Every structure is written in structure tokens, then in C-alpha cells.
């Protein structure tokens, strides 16, 4: 199936690999001959802060930033981050969420509480696909860093992208020596 227009918001914690994920989405848009813009966050927020990356695909893209209420997909590498950005989801959009918990410092210090029922809260209001991407990454790729690729696998499957197109986009963005483990992670997410 060929995609025509899609807005994907990738959210997570600095260091989880949101930049690589968005670049693979960018490559995919290129395969389909579509216009694409990606907006990234560099610098201070990457030090364990909340990070958000925008990927917009269409015949013609103007703003590189997805507006509130305009995301077809929110791909959350951490469940608290899914909660933080729900205003970006369009009516009828889907949240794909990794159930992994990474505690923010205010929770570690006791100044705030981590919501105990984050996924349940999300499911009350939105279409949600939740999965333990960390476990899948460890099992399929043997590496916790492959969480981002597992999540992409799920996204591409829901977008109706073929696995072979997804693999082509992946191969264009990762170093050859890491391609096999990343392909394993992609497939594990895709076939979930």
C-alpha cells in the first residue's frame, strides 16, 4: 500500500534514538517520491530530557512542525512521554507506546509521582498499541538500543508499508555492521 500523507510525532527520552527513527521515516518518504520534512531537537534536551521529533510526509509539506491535533501517529518510546504529547494526536489517530518506564528526575527525587496507570489512561481516550519494546529489542537484537527500531517496525506495519520497503529505508540509515541486528528488531516489531 502506498502512503500519501502522514504526520508522525516521535517522542521519548533524550538518548533513545528518536533522531535515527525520524531519518528512516524520511528515507521511506523518499522511496515513495513524496515530500517530507523532519524537525529535530539537538542540544540540551538530549541530556535525558523529554524529546520530540516531527516527521511530515505529503505531496507538498510546508511547516516542518506538526500542529496540535494533527498527528496521525504518536510513536512514544516511553509511556510518560506519550501522555505528555497527546494534544498532538488527531481525532482517530493512533498512539504506539513502549511500556518501558524511565523515571524523570522529579520522580526520582520524590517531587512528583509517576502515573501508575499511564497506558490505561491513554486507552480510555485514544486508540493505543502498547508493547514492551525493550524486551522485544533485547530478545530480537540482543541490544536495548534497538527499542527505536522495534517501535518503527510496529509503525510501518500500521502504516501499511511493506517490510521490504521498511528494510530498504533502514539499510540506508544504519551502519552496515549493525544492519543485521537492526533488521531483526525491525522485523520483530513489524510482525508483532
Amino acid at each position, binding site marked *: 500500500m502506498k502512503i500519501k500523507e502522514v504526520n508522525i510525532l516521535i517522542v521519548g527520552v533524550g538518548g533513545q534514538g528518536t533522531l535515527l527513527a525520524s531519518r528512516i521515516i524520511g528515507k521511506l518518504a523518499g522511496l515513495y517520491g513524496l515530500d517530507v520534512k523532519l524537525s529535530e531537537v539537538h542540544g540540551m534536551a538530549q541530556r535525558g530530557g523529554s524529546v520530540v521529533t516531527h516527521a511530515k510526509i505529503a505531496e507538498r509539506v510546508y511547516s516542518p512542525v506538526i500542529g496540535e491535533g494533527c498527528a496521525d501517529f504518536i510513536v512514544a518510546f516511553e509511556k510518560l512521554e506519550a501522555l505528555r504529547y497527546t494534544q498532538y494526536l488527531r481525532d482517530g489517530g493512533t498512539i504506539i507506546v513502549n511500556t518501558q518506564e524511565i523515571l524523570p528526575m522529579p520522580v526520582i527525587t520524590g517531587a512528583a509521582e*509517576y502515573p501508575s496507570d499511564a497506558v490505561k489512561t491513554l486507552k480510555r481516550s485514544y486508540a493505543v498499541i502498547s508493547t514492551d519494546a525493550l524486551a522485544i529489542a533485547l530478545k530480537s537484537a540482543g541490544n536495548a538500543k534497538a527499542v527505536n527500531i522495534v517501535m518503527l517496525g510496529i509503525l510501518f506495519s500500521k502504516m501499511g508499508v511493506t517490510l521490504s520497503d521498511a528494510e530498504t529505508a533502514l539499510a540506508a540509515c544504519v551502519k552496515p555492521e549493525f544492519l543485521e541486528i537492526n533488521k531483526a528488531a525491525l522485523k520483530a516489531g513489524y510482525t508483532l
Partner: protein
Amino acid sequence: MVKRQLMLGNAAIARGAYEAGVRVVSAYPGTPSTEISEVIATYKEVYAEWAPNEKAAFESAVGAAYAGARAMVCMKHVGVNVAADPMFTVAYTGINGGLVIVAADDPGMYSSQNEQDSRFYARSAHIPMLEPSDSGECKEFTKLAFELSERYDTPVFVRTTTRVAHSQSYVTAEERKELPLKPYVKNVKKYTMMPSSAVLRHIEVEKRENKFKADLAEIGVNTIEINDKSLGIICSGVVYQYVKEACPSASVLKLGVVYPVDTELVRRFAAEVKRLVVIEELEPFIEDTLKAAGVKCEGKNLFSLQGEISAALIKNKLYGEKIKTNTDYAPPRPPVLCAGCPHRGVFYILSKLKLTVSADIGCYTLGAQAPLSAVDTVLCMGASIGIAHGFEKAAGRAQSNKTVAVIGDSTFIHSGITGLINAVYNGSNITLLILDNSTTGMTGHQEHPATGKTLKGTSAKILDLEAMVKACGAESVRIVDAYDLPAVEKAVKGAIDEDGVSVVIAKRPCALLGKTRGVPYAISECKRCGMCGKIGCPAIRKNADGTMTIVAEQCAGCGVCAGLCKFGCIKKPEKNLKKT
């Protein structure tokens, strides 16, 4: 070679400079400008360097331009402040080879300490400024900037904002045009700025600017799209993209040249439309220019001086459309010092000793966050030392005994050295801590004069920080391992008890450089004392029963927490120990 590819705005600026035949590029890293230099360094035809600060970088580029080469200097908005001294006067001398200055603003302060608007530098120094709106324009405008620089004998600004610098869109790469070095001819009246010659050059500046203004139509990057005439919008940069998304039917004047503003074109556009709105991030720069020229318009009556604009915000302000807000609760997640960060233990000691800390710009600004909460002031690059010195001069020795300045290695070299010389020269009683993590950390690990490597990856002489501070006259220097907390505490206590300027250099490479990543620690039979939670390590979490756990995937194995546990509960697991 003609190839369309997805490119970061910063990479596109580098590509444009490369294609324009740039020979020399100098910069100091600063978000959101850093990647320009990192990309340009990959082109073998271009000499590219990290300079110790933006002023040094600027002067390198000026020298190269005088010598007849096309040259570029790149910096973040606050870097322009550092480079402003040569910048104002090179506007007088003009250039020989083309000189392009990239200034990257940060509306919304994703990684900055203020939201200053670089466009005012263009106006006050009389330097033309171009503003691209996506990666394609980043490349094209950079090439144009070199041409204009040579045609009008002036440096030319390319201004970006975070959303342009750090967004990716399509760029068509083209061949590089190799240009011969222009001959350098000695010309004292042009290149030697003292009153008698500067008076003459100032006349040229005004003439040049008038000529540039008159030629704006021919320069051609200001564009008008006439659609529905009931609403006309004037904008530039990424805001143009927001306007096209929010108001597809509106008439739009997009300014590619934001200084000087083409007021004639604006008047023509204003006459066409019923309602005229200027939409711009940060200051009312274009709006004020229009109002001074007698053009009635709206602008900052609708939009704030703060933060970014978005398509949703434009629809909200112009059409009253609501912006969807979040109704789900999520506790904040501020950036933190990484697991294994060598700064963590030092800040724990400073906090424990209840010292007043003037800190500086870099990752270690994060020492201000709870639970370390060890920082009192952060102002600008290099300011920590001057602030500690001034604090002591005002409040006296008793206070200074509790006051320390904290600065990183790259920031110390950037602009801390003069502050240290001042403190020594003027008989200060301060303690300076240099947190030497052997890199420029926050901007993403760039080399600097004390790392032994250049931007191009070649080896370089290593600036010896100990010898440097001693040469400044600070004779008392203690060097400690930043992971060795008892040693850090002893050194800091010893240093603050001394008269005069004392220095502690805490050494340990940044944990993200991958050189120090060790076997993860684990907690067994936790006594719930909570000591390990006081260092604010993201790898340590508290369980519901009050015990603590180390998350193995996140632990860098630095062992700082193990040193704090009075009960010896934090150890490397046995099976892992055997491996090491």
C-alpha cells in the same frame, strides 16, 4: 553531479558554502549552529577549524577574506555578542574574497540562555542579512550571500532559527565552483581602521547600503504571492512555512532579505491588501521598520515576543481557532546530568559543603537541578570567574571563602582565561573549579585546544590547563579525579581555605565518549538510607518499599554512588566482577 537528498538546514548551509567555493570556515560550537562546521569539515577542499571562541573564529574568517578567499564563520546568536567587535568594523573595511556570517537564533530557547534577535546586529552594523525558510533555501541563500558579499564589498549575514537549522527537507546538491584566490593588494585606507581611514570608510558603508537597497528588486529573493486580498501577511524564514500552512488563501510577502527591508516593495504590497499583518518570531524588527516608514500594520499586538510561532498559533490569532491542549498529566522531565557524568560527584560535594557557586555555560549548568541544586548563578560563557571575583570584592573574604566559580574545559578556554587573569591581577580570594571532561560536551562532543585533535581530525598541540592557570598567576593548583569524591572534597576544602586565587582541576572524560563505561553496579540488602538518591543519577530509582535499585541498562559503572553508601550495599555483581 545533481542529486536530491534530505538534508538538515545546517548541512545545507555547509553544502551551499562548499558549492560557492568557500576555502576557509571557522567557528566555535553552539546549538543550533554546530553541524554546519561538522559537515563542512567532511569536504576535503575546504579548510575548517574549531576556534577557541567566536571572536577568534570571526577574525580567522576575516583574514581569509582579506587574503582573497571565500570564507565563512558560524555561531549561535549569543556567539555574535562575542564576535561583535571585529564584526562592526569589518563592515567598514569590506572584504576581498566573500565573507559570510551565519547567526543561528534560538526562539523558544531549546538550548540557550536568552532569546536575543540577531537581526538587530545587521541593522546596527549595516550588514545585509538573508533569512532562508527551509534547507533548499539554506543552500541557495548561502551561495547568494557569497555573491552579494563580493558584489557589494560587504560581509553578509545568513540568519537561521532552530527550526530551520534543525529541520530536514530536500536539497539538490550541485557541483562546487572552484574559484581562484583573489589577489590581495595592500590598501591602508581600506584595511587599516584608524580614525582618518575609518571616517572615509563610513562614507562607503552608507553608499553601499543605499546601492544595496536600490538593487533589492534585482537581488530577487523577496517574493510576493497575491491571493485573497483581504489579508496580507509579511514574514520571513520558517514563519513563511507556518503562514502557508495556516493561511493558504492569504496574500504573502516573503522577505528573503530581512535587512535592509525593502520598504518600497512593502508599500506596494500594503496598497494591494486590506489587512496587513507582520508575523515574526522574537522582536518586532520588520514591524518597527514598516511603522517608521509610515506603513500601517499589525504584528506584536497579536503575537508575543517570546517563544516560537506555529501554524496553530497563527490560526488562533487570526481566526480564533482553539489550540488543542493536553488534558493528561505527565510529570516534567527536565534534562539531567547523564549516568556516569563526571560532574555529578563534584556538584554533590559543592552542595554538601553549602558553597555559593557561580557556574557557567555547558552541561554542568545542569548541576542547578534538584537534587544537586548546587548552582547559584549562570550568566554567559566565561562569566563564572568574573562573578565570583566581583562577589568577593563586594562581600569580602568571609563570603568568598564560601564562593567558588565552576567552569568546563572548553568554556574556560573560550572566555574564562581573561576572567582568571583579572582575578589574579586584582588580588582576588576566589576558588576556581575547572571541570575537565576533555570535550565540548553539551553541543555534542567537539574538539577544542586541550583535546589534542582538530575539527578535521588531525592531531594538534594540547593546551595544558594546569600550565595555563599557573601562567595566569594562579599558583595553587590541585588536580583530582572527578570520580574520587573524598579527593574532590579534600581539594575543594583545601583550596577555599587558601588566600589568593586557588584552582582545582577535576579530570574525567565525558561519560558519553564511551571511554569510561564500566560494569554496572547493583544494590543488595538496601538499608533505605537514601544517600545514593542524593546525587541525582538517572540510573538509580526508588522502589515503592523505599529501597533503591540501579537500572543496569542505564548505569555507566562510575561507582560514585558506591562510595556514598555507608553500608557498602552498592557493588559490582559477583559474576560481572569475575569477567573484569
